[in-house]
């Protein structure tokens, strides 16, 4: 398959069908906590790497209690990191002042900010992956719609996820057909198609997709669709959700201001 970044998005939705205490929480509580978590992590000043460590607990416990397997998450993390790593690597070059030395190895400001960017990328990306894999698209959509996100946008996201497989499968089989007939392009020389061939291939896919949209629309009209998806009966904000929301918010805010790492390290190392 040609697209390197291609990962089956349905995998996360499958994981969302597991039954666990984390899965059972109301999507609104999970959305709010995830947002707060990302804000708090990103507001820790870039040079305080150690202070970021307690925040590992949140995704670690989340994935753990929910029983989410590690492999699909790690695979997605590996794909997410290169861009952040690229920008962070520039800091290595720009900031070469030694700001800290550990056991005789001088660390430059660039090394520290590079590490800090990478760690925060891992933390925030895993928080987002955690949200999806313990909630699922449909319930996130329902939560967002109830929280005031425009209905047409929520519907659009749900539609997109639904048709992703259908249209991509079509694209893959068309691409395979081109490869088999080799239509004037020589595999081995380049991974891409000549532009003209690309145009007609994508054009055909587009025409098929648009035709499909017309058929989908007719089918939906026939079933009484008026432009709104209804989410009745999906959401129930129970006392457990209040407890989860309140305690997570309290812990996150406390970790932002107090620094248990520093204290713990101090106790162990006997310095300060």
């Amino acid at each position, binding site marked *: 398959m*040609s697209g390197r970044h291609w990962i089956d998005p349905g995998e996360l939705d499958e994981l969302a069908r597991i039954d666990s205490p984390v899965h059972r929480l109301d999507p609104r509580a999970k959305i709010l906590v995830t947002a707060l978590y*990302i*804000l708090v992590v990103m507001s820790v*000043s*870039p*040079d305080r790497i150690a*202070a970021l460590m307690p925040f590992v*607990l949140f*995704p*670690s*416990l989340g*994935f*753990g*209690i929910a*029983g989410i397997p590690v492999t699909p998450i790690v695979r*997605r993390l590996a794909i997410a990191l290169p861009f952040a790593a690229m*920008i962070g690597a520039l800091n290595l070059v720009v900031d070469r002042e*030694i*700001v*800290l*030395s*550990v*056991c*005789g190895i001088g660390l430059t400001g*660039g090394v520290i*900010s590079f590490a800090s960017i990478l760690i925060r*990328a891992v933390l*925030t*990306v895993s928080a*987002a*992956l955690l949200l999806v894999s313990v909630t699922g698209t449909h319930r*996130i959509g329902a939560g967002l719609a109830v929280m005031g996100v425009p209905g047409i*946008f929520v*519907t*659009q996201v749900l*539609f*997109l*996820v639904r*048709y992703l497989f259908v*249209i991509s499968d079509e*694209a893959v089989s068309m691409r395979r057909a081109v490869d088999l007939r080799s239509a004037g392009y020589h595999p081995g020389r380049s991974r891409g*198609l*000549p*532009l*003209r*061939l*690309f145009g007609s291939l994508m*054009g055909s*896919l587009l025409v098929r*997709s*648009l035709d499909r*949209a017309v058929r989908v*629309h007719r089918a939906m009209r026939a079933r009484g*669709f008026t432009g709104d998806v209804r989410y009745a009966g999906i959401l129930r904000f129970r006392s457990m959700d209040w407890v989860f929301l309140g305690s997570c918010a309290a812990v996150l805010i406390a970790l932002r201001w107090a620094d*248990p790492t*520093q204290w713990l*390290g*101090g106790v162990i190392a006997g*310095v*300060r």
Partner: protein
Amino acid sequence: MHMADALISPVVGGTMWLVSGSLLAHSARSLRRDTRDDLTPLMGVLGAFVFAAQMINFTIPGTGSSGHIGGGSLLSILLGPHAAFLTIASVLTVQALFFADGGLLALGCNIFNLGFFPAFLAYPFVYRKITGSGASPRARILGASVIAASTGLVPGAAAVVLQTSFSGISELPVPTFLALMLPIHLAIGIIEGLATAAVVLFVSAARPDMVPSHAASCRAGIHPLTLGLLAGALVLGGIGSWFASAHPDGLEWAIERVAGQLGGSRSGWHAGLSEIQETTAVMPDYGFRPGGTAAVEGDAGEPKWPAVDAGTSAAGVIGGALVLLVAVLAGFASRFGSARNTA
């Protein structure tokens, strides 16, 4: 050029969330007025199409390498600005949630950078102006696509630079960063335009009814009030993030100020310590020497990094490693406690 969460500060991210959120609300409102109920499946399927199109690479003319389209310009041409903006935003949301491509905090930035410029700037003011209403000759569609795709991409690349710099995370000076990003994205824009034109030309030849060539669907307008709000939000965010990045932690900065005033002899203390630092930086176990310092610029200017006390650093390293270990172990331990029954 998806921004990642790790590259922006909460102030910049939050500001861009507000900006993109109001653009989304605006687009949703104007589509409501349209009352085209076939738009929902059309947008959904086209969003999925963009995903699929990104799986198929084409050869970049004149080079050996290959690339794939971004799809912003194509969506604008097929759907008009408002529906295109919503569709691009949905594609980016799904990428952030399912593919970890870009992040949730950065989502506002990404929607603005990759959606606003192609849909609300390049399409109405470049593409439509060149092609006009009615059927256009092929060469004109080609030219319009290339120019529109570049106008859609380059400001987005500039916005990436500004957002990262305002966040105070990249230490590259803005002009250097711009000089790195802009030429690349101009080239990418031209290629994107060529690929977009290839698709549009094919469809308008095969199924002319599918490419809207009338201006009716395109009330390009963003209300002046919306524009004013946008500008206001950007200015506020700019000021806020400048302040935030110069002083990453308001409280620490304030404390440092107060301490500086109380201490009085801070600059002498400072200079002395950096002298020691210069002579001892390569010595083993330096990090454990209590009261030593690492850091800092030799000049009398404000330190770029808050002075890192070596004792504090050692405690930080040890404590950090321990907490990390505990956090990861807790995750694995909790696995055993919880029942796993896949439905």
